[in-house]
């Protein structure tokens, strides 16, 4: 095992390293998540951790946070060996963790979430509120203490998570994929906060799949592959490509645009689609949406989460009932049908494939075997069913095909879907949705949380299907993906499509500012084509206002 034994040695006179992990090994049933991991984090640095899905990053961090117990290995914090029995011990040692999946109780207020478990510090009443407000002021993270968390957007939730950690007096803060759900501007704001806090002496462990972000914020980066550390590097001196190669040992893929395959055959037509909020307030979540997707075209929708993209997709899928507006679909056989009053099942039968944004909630039956998951959404169609009866043999046969064609890494098709890692689950879902030869694919965040290898494969498959005449409605928070994959981009804001953009010329920053409603017109052709290096050329140092003002000037 190649391990990196503290490349940046703690020099004399310097503070001892904030964290030293040596020889950490952690086994789960069937999996070795960490194997002889070595990691040294200096005091007051941002230390990035990179690796494929399932490489063991989160597990390692949970061990450092006392949530998991290592089978072997030792931990030192600020030079002293420690042994954490529970997060309480870790918190006492000044370690805090912001989890990959938010750890918030929706039905409690912000204040309650923050003070939970740390009531001893300032109680749960007025004193705690004062302390929270003060903390928020100091770090610039505004929050409303008495708001219910369920009403907050992702960026706000993340602020709450960080405040939670700070409230406990943590000096070493673990951030597990904090940027996955943020738009560039929000990422920049986050980075500014981190830099400011680094000055104040905080130490950060930062996990991300976005290598340019790592290069923008981190002082050093450690790469983990298959549960073990493969090395530590200086992010300023390595390229994203090099980093990626360390992670997977292969070239970095990109969602690059190629020659257009757009035809003039309209596949999806949406007119005046509106949807009222479910809370009975009469507020429109979707407001007069018009759009057209043609055969061979990828239509990308950009937007900050919570602006109606989810609702748009679910309304087109028939999972929500539009209050007005109509939807037509032209199937593979050339017949056009109005979908407006059809059920989800009929819409699927008419030729829609659907990759949902949350595969666990909407894509998979987690405890059921893979082949039964193949049936979901296709239960009325061959090869998985005959009339009212399931065709088990057909379903198994076709699942084997998907596993092979989409490189789903699994011991077999009889294992439960939950046993696959996120990337492999996603490949299965994409494979399933493309297997019925749909006319339209609705793909919501098709590569979210998926490692670079799986990402490339999913992009390739979407691209191949598009060349075969598939129309794609793509929703993504990953602006590189959006720009790289789309033939047309529309920006969604507060339930309306507010701007169009040309993927050939728009930059992620421009798109980002349009998404936040700062600009309504996105310039086309001002910049060169998107780079294979993803976003961040320069944006890492520029703050958001630069992007805003640029957009504003052009507008």
């Amino acid at each position, binding site marked *: 095992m190649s391990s990196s034994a503290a490349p940046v040695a703690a020099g004399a006179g310097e503070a001892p390293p904030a964290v030293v992990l040596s020889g950490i090994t952690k086994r789960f049933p069937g999996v070795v998540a960490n194997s002889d991991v070595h990691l040294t984090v200096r005091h007051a640095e941002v230390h990035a951790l990179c690796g494929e899905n399932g490489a063991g990053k989160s597990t390692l961090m949970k061990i450092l*946070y006392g*949530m*998991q117990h290592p089978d072997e290995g030792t931990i030192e914090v600020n030079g002293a060996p420690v042994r954490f029995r*529970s*997060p*309480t011990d870790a*918190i006492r040692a000044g370690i805090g963790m912001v*989890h990959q*999946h938010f*750890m*918030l*109780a*929706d*039905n*409690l207020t912000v204040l*309650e*979430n923050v003070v*939970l*478990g740390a*009531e*001893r510090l300032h*109680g*749960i009443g007025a004193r705690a509120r004062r302390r929270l407000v003060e903390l928020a002021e100091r*770090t*610039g*993270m*505004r929050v409303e203490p008495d*708001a219910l968390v369920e*009403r*907050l*957007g*992702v*960026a*706000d939730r993340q*602020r709450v998570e960080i405040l*939670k950690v700070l409230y406990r007096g943590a000096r070493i803060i673990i951030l597990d994929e904090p940027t996955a759900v943020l738009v560039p501007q*929000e990422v920049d*704001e*986050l980075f*500014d*906060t981190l830099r*400011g806090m680094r000055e104040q002496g905080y130490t950060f462990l930062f996990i991300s799949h976005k290598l340019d972000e790592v290069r923008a914020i981190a002082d050093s980066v450690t790469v983990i592959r298959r549960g073990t550390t493969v090395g530590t590097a200086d992010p300023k001196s390595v390229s994203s490509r090099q980093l990626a190669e360390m992670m997977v040992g292969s070239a970095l893929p990109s969602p690059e645009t190629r020659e257009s395959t757009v035809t003039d055959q309209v596949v999806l037509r949406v007119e005046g689609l509106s949807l009222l*909020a479910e*809370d009975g*307030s009469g*507020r429109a*979540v979707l407001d007069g949406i018009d759009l057209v997707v043609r055969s061979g075209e990828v239509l990308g929708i950009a937007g*900050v*989460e*919570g*602006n109606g993209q989810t609702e748009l997709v679910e309304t087109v899928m028939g999972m929500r009932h539009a209050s007005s507006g109509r939807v037509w679909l032209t199937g593979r056989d050339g017949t056009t049908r109005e979908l407006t009053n059809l059920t989800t099942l009929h819409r699927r039968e008419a030729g829609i494939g659907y990759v949902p944004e949350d595969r666990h909630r909407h894509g998979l039956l987690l405890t059921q075997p893979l082949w039964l998951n193949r049936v979901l959404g296709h239960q009325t169609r061959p090869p998985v069913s005959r009339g009212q009866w399931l065709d088990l043999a057909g379903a198994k046969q076709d699942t084997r095909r998907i596993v092979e064609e989409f490189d789903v890494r699994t011991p077999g098709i009889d294992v439960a879907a939950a046993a696959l890692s996120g990337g492999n689950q996603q490949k299965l879902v994409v494979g399933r949705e493309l297997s019925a030869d749909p006319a339209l694919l609705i793909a919501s965040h098709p590569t979210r949380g998926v490692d670079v290898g799986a990402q490339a494969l999913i992009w390739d498959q979407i691209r191949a299907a598009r060349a075969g005449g598939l129309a794609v409605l793509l929703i993504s928070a990953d602006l590189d993906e959006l720009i790289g994959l789309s033939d047309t981009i529309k920006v969604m804001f*507060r339930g309306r499509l507010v701007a169009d953009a040309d993927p050939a010329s728009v930059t992620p920053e421009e798109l980002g*500012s349009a998404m*936040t*409603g*700062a600009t309504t017109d996105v310039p086309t052709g001002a910049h060169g084509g998107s780079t294979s290096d993803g976003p961040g050329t320069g944006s890492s140092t520029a*703050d*958001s*206002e630069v992007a*805003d003002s640029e957009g504003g000037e052009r507008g």
Partner: protein
Amino acid sequence: MAATTTSGGENPSAAPMTRTLTPPRRRLPGWATGMLWVAVAVTVLSTTAYLTNIPQLTSSSTTQTAVRLALPILLAGLGGLWAERAGVVNIGLEGMMIFGTWGAAWGGYYWGPWVGLLAAAVFGALGGLIHALATVTFGVNHIVSGVAMNLLGAGVTKYLSTLIFQPLSHNPRESPPVPKFETYSAAGLSDWLAQLEATQRVGIADVAGILRGLVTGVSPLTMLGILLVPVTYLVLWRTRFGLRLRSCGENPVATESLGVNVYLHKYLAVVASGALAGIGGATLVLNPGQAGFLENQTNGRGYIGLAAMIFGNWRPGGLLGGAALFGYSDGLQLSSGGQTVLALVYGVVLLLGVLVLVQLFRRRWLAAGVSLVAAALLYTLYWTVDELPSELTTYLPHFLTLVVLAVASQRLRPPAADGVVYRRGEGD
């Protein structure tokens, strides 16, 4: 993250999207809604009492009866509330109540009502402990464990009473007579209210009647039961322990990640739940007018308590309302029979009338239409029928619960992780 931007309103990029999309609606605080409901209920009842000329609807005797019948349900419901707020569904309340009745009779027979009360709580808590062991430590499905608890409650107490009570009472299914709590009345107040009630002035007499029922002939156990409602609220919503307990029911993984011992809190909650259900059982033994231990005497009250809790939207105030509704309607049909039930139908018509107005005001035409039709139907029923079949009026409280739930159609909000088996360290 908003570090670089200053005034939020100016620069939309600083404003998080979801928040601007959902302007927080001004909601009345819980206690105000509660008071409003009480006011509506009293108004409708006294109007009905006046219009139908049936004063029993608001007499002190009715209220007293309602309190008596509501008390075990209220306590069982509180038990359910504690457990479910910590994320453990407790369908075993019935069994724990039975444990409580046995404990109350046993402790009460030998050492008097106070020890009986204690024994009831301890026996109920023991039931809760078994439930906690199964659901929390062994990760058993909560419903399964609850069903088993109900079987165990019935079986174990039957068995124990064969062993212990039979030699005393010569009856394996019944305890010997058990000393009861004394009752107390707020003497002056009660008399003054009695005078008011006797005046038969609309409104005043009704309110006086209801109040008098609440302050007359009250046992310490009754006071304890009613007191436990605000206590539950304060403990669960205003203390650090309560916060931790509730967060175990909302998101145990997050709670554990903050260093809170989720297992411990769930255990405490379920044990408290059992103790409360046990006290609920004790009210069937130690309050005046009750029997000692009697096989099957809980008679489904644990389930009703659970229903009252769901009805009350997992909140103590709502639960109180649910239990009161149940106790009131049951008391009314038991003590005054068919005619009053019919009067109550009239009251529902009035209530629907109010609802129609509200719905018209809110421009909900369909809902208003439905309510109007329902009101018309019920009114026809009221006029055409002299007395309802007694077989059906017996179950008036059950009908009412269904109807109120269907009409109010409130969005109930169970704790997010209610009934979810949580295993330590297996979180994401």
